[in-house]
């Protein structure tokens, strides 16, 4: 277990944990203000996180410094692996029934659709989620946060999207948890989402957040997305139509992948 110690799990630079929240928030504010000025000067909105975002200390040595090299996708890049009922059992989308008892916490349904950048549903594709429990603890040996593990909650789910790109998970609302980016750092409550599209170039992993979280402004991972409108896209909406009588509250969250390149590139080949 020694090589799984808490210390080397979160912190790349031991000095990083000495920054205060005020310092981190100040850095975030400066970067956001510079971005706002660039947009006012006519620069296109940034809709993805910056990979070079110093307030998130672990990103310092883990981001490419050169621009991504633009290329036209070929063959394998225009396709995606197939997943189906062989891979994922239908009950894997209910995270509250994986053990003998009911997990502790606020039972919720998170449902929505997966679309591509053209607004087309992404059907029959794999969605995977993982999350902390209602006390903010992950079932992961590197998570040593002294909050209770729930023997009835693992926090891992999978689903295959339906014909209209729809998905639905039943789970427990996760809690915020502390991490070691800086002194007194807390992550807003979130659920990790992993998604596939029709092209492997659409592959993405992200995090879904809950509306009104007071930790948003303090979190360097969430704030690495410099554009407010883009950040808002990661926040689910409370949806009373998804809430069920005397059972669970409901949140809606739709996910948009990048555009497929297969259709337009194939059409182009036919035109020649």
């Amino acid at each position: 277990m020694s090589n799984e110690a808490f210390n080397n799990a979160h912190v790349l630079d031991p000095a990083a944990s000495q920054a205060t929240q005020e310092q981190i928030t100040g850095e975030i504010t400066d970067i956001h203000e510079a971005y706002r000025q660039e947009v006012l000067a006519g620069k296109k909105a940034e809709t993805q996180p910056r990979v070079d975002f110093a307030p998130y200390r672990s990103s310092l040595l883990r981001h490419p410094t050169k621009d991504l090299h633009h290329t036209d996708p070929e063959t394998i890049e225009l396709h995606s692996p197939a997943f189906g009922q062989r891979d994922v059992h239908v009950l894997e989308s209910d995270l509250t029934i994986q053990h003998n008892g009911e997990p502790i916490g606020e039972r919720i349904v998170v449902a929505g659709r997966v679309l591509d950048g053209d607004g087309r549903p992404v059907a029959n594709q794999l969605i995977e989620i993982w999350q902390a429990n209602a006390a903010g603890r992950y079932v992961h040996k590197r998570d040593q946060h002294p909050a209770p593990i729930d023997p009835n909650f693992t926090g891992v789910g999978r689903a295959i999207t339906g014909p209209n790109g729809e998905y639905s998970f039943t789970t427990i609302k996760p809690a915020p948890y502390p991490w070691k980016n800086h002194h007194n750092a807390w992550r807003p409550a979130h659920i990790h989402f992993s998604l596939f599209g029709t092209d492997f170039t659409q592959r993405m992993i992200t995090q879904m957040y809950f509306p009104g979280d007071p930790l948003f402004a303090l979190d360097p991972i969430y704030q690495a997305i410099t554009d407010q409108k883009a950040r808002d896209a990661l926040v689910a909406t409370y949806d009373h139509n998804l809430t069920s009588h005397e059972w669970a509250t409901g949140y809606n969250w739709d996910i948009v992948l990048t555009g497929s390149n297969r259709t337009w590139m194939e059409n182009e080949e036919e035109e020649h």
Partner: protein
Amino acid sequence: MKQAPELKLTPTPGQTIGPFYGYALPFEKGGELVNQAHPAAVRLHGVVYDGNGDVIPDSLLEIWQADEHGNVVSRDGSLVRDGYTFTGFGRVPVDNVGHYTFTTVNPGPTEAGKAPFIMLTIFARGLLNRLFTRIYLPEDTEALANDPLLASLPEERRKTLIATREEDGSLRFDVHLQGEKETVFLSYPRES
């Protein structure tokens, strides 16, 4: 080349995989696209490094590739492997010293004369969005010379995308997220 059509919707932002994916995303035989006993089995392995040249012990890699005849397959069964069906997809976490291993086959050229490559996606704690790159096989030097992506890169950068064939037939491909040997990472049309 025709212009890629504009997107109707703005893609959802990515976020880091974080440190705690280990109990969620890896799956049994995730790195075994074929069984080790498969007559064409090849080890694809390497190490993921940060900008200091230190190994990254908490990264997750995925590959997606054609079969040894150059066919792009569309078969389920990646997450629950039967040991016989080639699905073209693999996923492995690196180990505590940043090393990964896939057992796969050399992908064949998808068209005659095309340089075969494996698509690689990298996730890591500290990496705020996934990165894409290509692992080219080193053998067909003529096809490599004619490859449009490789031709668009200076020599020093170009070689970061070409795997090394080791004496035992293994493919070696290291990933450098940053630094002098920084791997070429790719963007594609229609990302925003």
